């Protein structure tokens, strides 16, 4: 299988270890399936931030949700703090929920507009009966204070707050039950750059203050680099590359990572965007993903081997893993004029079969 393999998993005690995750969704009664996540393995050490990056449709959100068992993966295992989550059902799984929390992309629609923000933050404590009434109140005040919301505004409802403040409230709600792991699904994509910076700094503070471990899902590579200890690049349900952010950005080994990096707009007028350095095409349909390496239909370096053999994740440099038959050499430039194998100018071949 391309982009599968587990060599990038680390020895020893990881807080979370997900192996061979597969998530597929049936397409009506056609018998066809959407291959959202295909054999992805990842691990997170305690206190670490793992960044999951990729374009829309690469399966990063689905992978995050599969860890939460929302929905559970079709196959594979998720071990969280010594507990195998995929084996749990019903009440036993529910018991794990306060220890795993999520923060969503759209801060305004992820808060119930009819409830007061105090009650929104407090709900987890009430459900789990954590502490007596005054202890819960004190805890709510404490987390609201920690995220920079004045507790005296707790009687207000979400519409009275801006997007950035709503995201702070979401963070307060997530940390109130003292979770070990927080999954942040594009938490800053809907925010302005200035607010984005506030929220990213806040996440760092909260991580330190509450001893959190974080999965940070985003499509913005600069944001991911800023927050992560380890970055995992995904494409169409597969892993492309795993490594520490400084190494991975300094010296991308996978052509896809290099293409993503080349597409980032630089806030410097001297750096003129070069239209020859843009990856063409779009992510193919996950219903009929390309054979072999899934990126080959857009990869400037694709070779016949990429059509037939799926690359496994392998060691590229210390603590830097790549799933590619032909990783980039030091200083190698991608020739973006080449459009991969099995690709017309813009449409991946698989799209025709499904859209017409």
């Amino acid at each position, binding site marked *: 299988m391309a982009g599968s393999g587990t060599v990038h998993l680390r020895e020893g005690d990881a807080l979370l270890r997900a192996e061979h995750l597969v998530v597929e969704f049936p397409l009506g009664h056609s018998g066809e399936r959407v291959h959202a996540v295909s054999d992805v393995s990842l691990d997170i050490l305690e206190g670490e931030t793992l960044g999951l990056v990729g*374009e*829309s449709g690469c399966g990063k959100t689905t992978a995050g949700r599969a860890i939460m068992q929302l929905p559970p993966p079709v196959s594979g295992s998720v071990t969280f703090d010594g507990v195998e989550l995929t084996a749990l059902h019903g009440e036993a799984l529910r018991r794990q929920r306060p220890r795993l929390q999520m923060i969503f992309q759209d801060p305004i629609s992820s808060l119930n507009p009819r409830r007061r923000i105090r009650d929104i933050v407090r709900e987890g404590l009430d459900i789990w009966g954590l502490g007596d009434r005054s202890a819960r109140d004190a805890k709510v005040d404490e987390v609201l204070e920690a995220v*920079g*919301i*004045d507790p005296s*505004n707790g009687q*207000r409802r979400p519409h*009275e*707050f*801006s*997007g*950035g*403040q709503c995201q*702070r409230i979401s963070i307060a709600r997530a940390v109130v039950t003292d979770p070990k792991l927080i999954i942040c699904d594009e938490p800053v994509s809907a925010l*302005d*750059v*200035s*607010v*984005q*910076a*506030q929220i*990213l*700094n806040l996440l*760092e503070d909260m991580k330190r203050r509450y001893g959190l471990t974080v999965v940070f899902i985003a*499509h*913005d*590579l*600069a944001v991911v*680099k*800023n*927050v*992560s*200890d380890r970055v995992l690049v995904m494409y169409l349900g597969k892993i492309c590359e795993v490594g520490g*952010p*400084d190494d991975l*950005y300094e010296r991308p080994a996978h052509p896809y990572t290099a*293409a*993503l*990096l080349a*597409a*980032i*707009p*630089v*806030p*410097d*007028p*001297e*750096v*003129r*965007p070069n*239209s020859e350095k*843009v*990856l*063409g095409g*779009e992510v193919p349909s996950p219903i009929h993903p390309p054979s072999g390496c899934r990126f080959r239909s857009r990869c400037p370096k694709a070779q016949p081997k990429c059509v037939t053999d799926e690359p496994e994740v392998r060691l590229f440099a210390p603590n830097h893993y790549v799933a590619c038959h032909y990783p980039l050499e030091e200083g190698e430039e991608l020739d973006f004029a080449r459009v991969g194998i099995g690709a*017309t*100018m*813009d449409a991946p071949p698989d799209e025709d079969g499904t*859209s*017409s």
Partner: protein
Amino acid sequence: MSAQRFGDADYDGPLLEVEDLTTYFETGRGLVRAVDHVSLTLERGQTLGVVGESGSGKTVLSRSIMNLLPRHGVERSGSVRFEGHDILSHSAKEMRPFWGAQMSMIFQDPMTSLNPVMKIGKQITEAIREHLDVTKDYANDLAEALLGSVRIPEPHQRMNEYPHQLSGGMRQRICIAVALACGPKLLFADEPTTALDVTVQAQVLDLIAKQQSERFMAMVLVTHDLGVVAGRADEIAVMYAGRVVERAPTTVLFSDMKMPYSEALLASIPKIDEHSHTRLATIPGRPPDLVNPPPGCKFAPRCPYVQEKCVDEEPPVRPGVEPGHEFRCWFPVGTPEGKEALERNQREGRIPQAAVSAAAPS
């Protein structure tokens, strides 16, 4: 399509001149000063980047120039001259020959700006048939050619498809095709790539830039991301609280930034070449309430350079060293007085008020 087709052959002034434009909305709480005395000019074929946070008035500015605001509850004054004609007080009927044919707009959200129950071909030919005296077949051929030029694969088939059958990036290309259909001289692109992935963002921005140079079309590129406009705009206007607080040719703005707000905006972007876990510079607080803006400089409550003068007195527009550079600041970045103000604040541990009240709801 020649740029001169509708042209006023005699007119050789700037394509667009906006002078002292204000746009106020009447609300229950009072007048919202969304655009407050904005002046700018745009030459043919040039790109103006308009940058600011949400609520800075950048979207209202472009809609006000295009006369795309509700008829009621809006107060506008000043002047908007397009090729010398004042279009500010035009009625919708008088604007019809301008919309689409002379100036058009690409909206932020490609998912909702196309009609979901109309075939893609029809959405493009509708504008062509409205403005150009051509047959249906000719309009269809033109639309198909346009789809090809915005790099939609198999344009012939796509003409008969509906928007939901296409991805977000493809839909934004359709929006571009619709906006370009009648060869406008001025294009407003309002956050055209905010809803898209980085790779698709680069594709779409390149496509707009290519079409722009082929058609010698002027563009107003509205965005909150200084990174997007840095390499693509000839000139940048930074907006804050309904005003243009700094305006300069792009290279001048980046080399000789004067307004503390522009500096703060640039500093808050995570940079790809910084190490991970670099603490980001933030702008404390939020933009002011546009019903009751602060009396002095609108940025004063959040500004690290703030002095008493800033709170009391609104700074006038001041010229920079380079031609075309203007800003509104008493203590500009990189000047002796600015440096002194910043040092004094640091020495006295003075932080902007908004930093303390960041948590106050609106």
